[in-house]
């Protein structure tokens, strides 16, 4: 086992981004992801890389657009209200086929809301918060070590598919500390080549980065190419975890922080003779519809637990259809469901 460090989720995402070869990071401070910005401010300049505290979230994501177009690994991070401001840029990044990583350490909403943990930005992340027919790959880490692993993966997927990738975390994951083994730093010289990037047209035709075509026929073609890419991502990149589902009668579906709380609930439920399992989507887009559908055939109840009014629940019901009962338990406003709270919900459906 390598050396373990006790670090916050926010710090681990920042450090993993550095180790993934992020060369340009742009952000505007907001709680509860301040430590992420501060970690980058401390370490990026020391490594000869770019840190800019942007004048706004809008500017930060636009700087990401520029750095991504120039062919370097780049990232921005924020929390809910700031992510709303980034939607314009995310749409342009998706439309221009640019790779970029966006971190949302979600807090209570809507509006200014509060700074407590929440999962209320699920729709915005997975259904396309900006304008146009686009998707981001959305990764939902559940532990601090996984936040680091998925940050590394986010850069890899962004480059592979030339697409924005979002890390959808929450205030709890951002703030808590856990032992973590940090990933090896990638060598910048070994990162994927980007012959499409705007680096100066030396010995080749100009590269043009855009999300624009006045001709409906041409724009339709650009859209079809995007959709073909999304089909490829759906085929290759669906990720999920199951725990104790083999003999389960009831399964909790949860992602992120709630999924790890649910793991404690499984232990408690099984101690009381309730055969409870967990289904945890890791990719929230593309969503693991098929494995969840298969699971629905084997259990009587699929209980969705979220820190929202039931946003992911819509995807769960799309997967489950009528194959199993599909109730919902959620908390909002920054209230975090506790193990006891979830257990008492589970007991309502135990037979």
């Amino acid at each position, binding site marked *: 086992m390598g050396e373990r460090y006790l670090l916050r989720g926010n710090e681990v995402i920042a450090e993993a981004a550095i180790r993934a070869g992020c060369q340009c990071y742009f952000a505007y401070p907001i709680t*509860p992801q301040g430590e992420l910005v501060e970690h980058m401010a401390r370490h990026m300049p020391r490594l000869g890389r770019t840190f800019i505290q942007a004048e706004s979230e809008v500017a930060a994501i636009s700087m990401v657009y520029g750095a991504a177009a120039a062919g370097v690994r780049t990232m921005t991070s924020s929390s809910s209200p700031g992510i709303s401001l980034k939607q314009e840029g995310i749409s342009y990044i998706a439309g221009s086929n640019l790779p970029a990583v966006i971190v949302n350490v979600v807090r209570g909403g809507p509006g200014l809301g509060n700074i*407590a943990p929440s999962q209320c930005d699920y729709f915005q992340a997975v259904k396309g918060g900006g304008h146009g027919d686009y998707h981001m790959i959305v990764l939902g880490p559940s532990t601090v070590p996984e936040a680091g692993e998925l940050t590394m993966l986010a850069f890899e997927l962004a480059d592979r598919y030339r697409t924005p990738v979002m890390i959808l975390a929450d205030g709890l994951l951002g703030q*808590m*500390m*856990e032992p973590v083994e940090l990933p090896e730093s990638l060598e910048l010289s070994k990162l994927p080549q980007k012959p499409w990037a705007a680096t100066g047209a030396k010995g080749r035709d100009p590269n043009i980065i855009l999300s624009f075509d006045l001709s409906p026929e041409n724009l339709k073609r650009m859209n079809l190419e995007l959709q073909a890419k999304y089909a490829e991502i759906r085929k290759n990149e669906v990720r999920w975890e199951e725990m104790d589902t083999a003999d389960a009668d009831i399964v909790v579906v949860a992602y992120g922080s709630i999924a790890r*709380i649910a793991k404690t609930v*499984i232990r408690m439920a099984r101690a009381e003779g309730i055969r409870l399992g967990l289904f945890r989507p890791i990719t929230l887009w593309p969503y693991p519809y098929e494995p969840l559908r298969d699971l629905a055939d084997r259990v009587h109840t699929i209980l969705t637990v979220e820190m929202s009014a039931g946003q992911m629940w819509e995807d769960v019901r799309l997967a489950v259809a009528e194959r199993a009962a599909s109730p919902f338990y959620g908390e909002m406003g920054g209230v975090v469901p506790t193990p*006891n709270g979830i257990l008492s919900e589970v007991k309502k459906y135990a037979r």
Partner: protein
Amino acid sequence: MERSVVIAGFGGQGVILAGKILAQAGMSHGLEVTWLPSYGPEMRGGTANCTVILSDQPIGSPIVDEPSAVIALNLPSLDKFEPTVAKKGILLVNRSLIARDVKRKDIVSHAIPINDIAAQVGNLRTVNMVALGAYVKATGVVPLDAVKRAMAAAMRDGGKEKLVEINEKALDAGYAAIP
């Protein structure tokens, strides 16, 4: 076995740091740990708390309904967290600042004059280490030496190496305060 503790007090009493040091000591001792702070406006003046879990198994929820121990450094913390302590759990109460008795009869409670001990040690800001020393003695969850090493590392990281000695004394004094 999973042991959890909520350390709670006024902002400025060092509860967040005490939790970090405990978590660091647990990790160095080979345990799985989680550390979860209360954050935001609470940090600035009101009450602050953090939850630390130490376990020999992977930890699921970093949130606990019924912590196996609570350290209450002020009255609001006692009022808030006394009802949550697990049955047969441990409650450490700062007698220096809390006049009332513990109400629960199904837990083990220790009322210690933590501020007075810190003053005797020579620095009131070592309240958190006195409390942590007492907690380590009362629970035996990690060796006191592991906590001392974690504390020294934390002081060094914060550029406060000269405070290592007095904080060691505070840990010892807290440890000695539990029979």
